[in-house]
């Protein structure tokens, strides 16, 4: 009990501090922080529509966060989640359009295609790191751009005839749910939330309960000792990237099959991959932590849209608050230090 409590204290304090500093910024800029936060909360849980939209926002954050966290846990920095997400999106949509199958086959196939594409895209930096010791960070940064341009090209020249977006996926491949729509007043909340939760469990299970996870983490901590213990360092590096990439690809598939139902030419990155880094780190790279962080992150982002309309406060204030929270979590040493001071003072 107390163990969990202390694990939670510094993130909670960080969130509170972040919100306080955000309020100060609003005050200084001449806005009313109470109205601001009020409208933000309204935008998160104000009514069933907003709840549904908030849940929808959280889905890709969970998956992108898992992707980054999984790699981190095994000693790799997958900064390429963005690119993997983009190719996963496209692949899932492609399967969603190209086939005519019963739902029970079509939907899983489309989801798997997204995961496979993401995995394949992450395989490249994994393989190059394993074989040539090339830094995975640069390769995946480069592959982000490559993914962006290649998918744009494919959408425009292969999947369509110079159009900016693909046709809609077949209903049999859609994650959309009339049920969710009906209970949330036409929000776009979709079954992806179930996929995300399954992935959370998968990540936890792989890392904490399987021999594969044991190897992956060991290789991440100490390659020499892992090799000595008979593990294949190269295989595990690649496997780790592939699993991470599959999560990222799923994040894209959720967007393609759930939120949008199509893939469109992108003018730039979706940003979800980079936000995934923040989610993972905020969640201390654990499965459950990622869920909590995604809830916070996605909730704030969803709520932010409501602020300009209701109060005229630029929605960027929420980005500032999120950044500050991450700062404070990172500097938890600082929080502990303050807390220790405080305790001493009380005594």
């Amino acid at each position: 009990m107390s163990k969990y409590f202390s694990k939670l204290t510094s993130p909670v304090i960080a969130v509170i501090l972040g919100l306080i500093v955000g309020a100060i910024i609003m005050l200084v800029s001449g806005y009313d922080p109470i109205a601001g936060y009020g409208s933000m909360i309204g935008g998160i849980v104000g009514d069933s529509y907003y709840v549904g939209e908030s849940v929808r926002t959280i889905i890709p954050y969970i998956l992108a966060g898992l992707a980054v966290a999984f790699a981190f846990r095994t000693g790799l920095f997958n900064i390429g989640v963005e690119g993997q997400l983009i190719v996963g999106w496209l692949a899932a949509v492609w399967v969603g359009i190209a086939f005519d199958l019963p739902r029970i086959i079509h939907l899983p196939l489309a989801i798997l295609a997204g995961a496979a594409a993401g995995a394949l895209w992450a395989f490249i930096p994994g393989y190059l790191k394993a074989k040539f010791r090339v830094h995975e960070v640069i390769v995946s940064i480069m592959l982000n751009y490559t993914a962006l341009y290649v998918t744009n090209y494919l959408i425009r020249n292969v999947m369509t005839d110079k159009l900016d977006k693909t046709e809609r996926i077949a209903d049999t491949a859609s994650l959309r749910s009339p049920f969710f729509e009906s209970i949330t007043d036409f929000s776009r909340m979709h079954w992806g939330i179930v996929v995300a939760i399954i992935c959370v469990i998968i990540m936890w299970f792989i890392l904490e309960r399987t021999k594969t996870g044991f190897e992956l983490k060991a290789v991440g901590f100490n390659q020499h000792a892992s090799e000595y213990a008979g593990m294949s360092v190269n295989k595990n590096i690649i496997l780790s990237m592939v699993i991470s990439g599959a999560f990222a690809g799923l994040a894209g598939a959720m967007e393609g099959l759930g939120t949008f139902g199509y893939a469109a030419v992108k003018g730039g990155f979706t940003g979800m991959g980079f936000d995934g880094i923040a989610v993972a780190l905020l969640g201390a790279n654990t499965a459950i932590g990622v869920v909590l962080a995604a809830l916070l992150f996605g909730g704030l982002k969803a709520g932010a849209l409501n602020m300009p309309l209701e109060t005229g406060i630029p929605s960027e204030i929420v980005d500032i608050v999120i950044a500050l929270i991450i700062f404070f979590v990172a500097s938890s040493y600082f929080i502990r230090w303050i807390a220790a001071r405080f305790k001493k003072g009380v005594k």
Partner: protein
Amino acid sequence: MEYVIEMLNIRKEFPGIVANDNVTLQVKKGEIHALLGENGAGKSTLMNVLFGLYQPEQGEIRVNGKPVKITSPNIANELGIGMVHQHFMLVDPFTVTENIILGKEPSKGGKIDLKEASEEVRKLSEQYQLRVDPYAKIADISIGMQQRVEILKTLYRGAEILIFDEPTAVLTPQEIKELIFIMKALIKEGKSIILITHKLKEIMEVCDRVTVIRKGQGIGTVNVNETNPNELASLMVGREVLFKTEKTAASPSDVVLDVSGLEVKDSRGVSAVRNLELTVRAGEIVGIAGVDGNGQSELIEALAGLRKTTAGSIKLNGKEIRNLKPRKITESGVGHIPEDRHKHGLVLDYSIGENIVLQTYYQKPYSKAGILNSKRIFEKARSLIKSYDVRTPSEYTPARALSGGNQQKAIIGREVDRNPDLLIAAQPTRGLDVGAIEFIHKRLIEQRDAGKAVLLISFELEEIMNVSDKIAVIYEGEIVAIVNPKETTEQELGLLMAGSKRMEAGGKQNV
């Protein structure tokens, strides 16, 4: 009497532990003063306090009779205190000179004056006969030379009091001899030395006085010429220690390991093991004696499958295992206590329990259908921790938090418990205190008596002589001689290891 250093009633706490409790250390000018204690007794901590890395909670430090506050290594340097750390404090990609001048760089117009620096380094190294190449990169030079660089660093800063924290643990016998010579030269120049070592022989040889600490507490100071190793050992451990490991005669039977014509290249592609011939039988301990850098590391790595070999054969129980994957080799019955426990032996961020199954986690009962059974894993860990006397708060403690000796015990437990036909023990007691060494030697002999083949690699002649049933001397990647420990002397071995005398029959004969 005039003391250059006085540490009076020092107390240093770490969260949950008192590392130094009321310890007093007084060093006279011009003496070599030994600091003795078990692993984790608090020696390094005390010295780090003296060097300004830690602040004591209590106690007083005086330098040349004057009370001082040493709040940083800088101040220690200014007071003429220099320290050669247990783990070298050298910047690998830097040259020798750069390492020495760091923090006190001679410069001209904002630019480091490398010429003057090198000149000064050369002068110092001549004065104290510390052979170094000022332009060599640290990564490229031997441990012995690295240590000389460490010493030069302190001298460059004008140190009058030098602290050596376990300087000999990493050195070959030759290098130890050199170091002792250097220390004596330093004393002649008027310096004072504090020496931490677990090797009582060294204390008897070079030191004037010894201060003993046990579990963080000062036990007292004795004059070396009024004591003997046995007394020192029991002062330190608090009980009698047997030095000569007791063992019965060996009864070797079938050949377990048969190496012939083995060729291995080192990381730079230079031939490190050449046409090596070696056999180890069940029920015997074969010790490999040799000066560091004669192909021992490459040989072990080749045997364990961590390094590819280019020619020859390695047979285990008659089956070829050359160039197999490490796991295949382990599974065919090889246990391996690696040379570098931090690099190869342990995943320091894993719990001690997880480390105990590092070789077997994928087998039943620890995992089934790819799923780990943590209950069985930690059960196993508990039982090994108990039977190998690994001192750890719990099986869930990260391996990183254990002392070197206890880490080593865990590794040995892990390897022996798998019941391998061949146990390779590389430097198994490096840096350990006499109690731990005794324990490990006993385990090795137990294995032998259980009919296993044991291959022991060590730079410590004493260990080789004591434990082995047969000694193979390695020189420049070849086994140049095989001798019976009962029929040889350290002198003869030393000559063999230096390559000056080869046995007529070469390395091929079997005793």
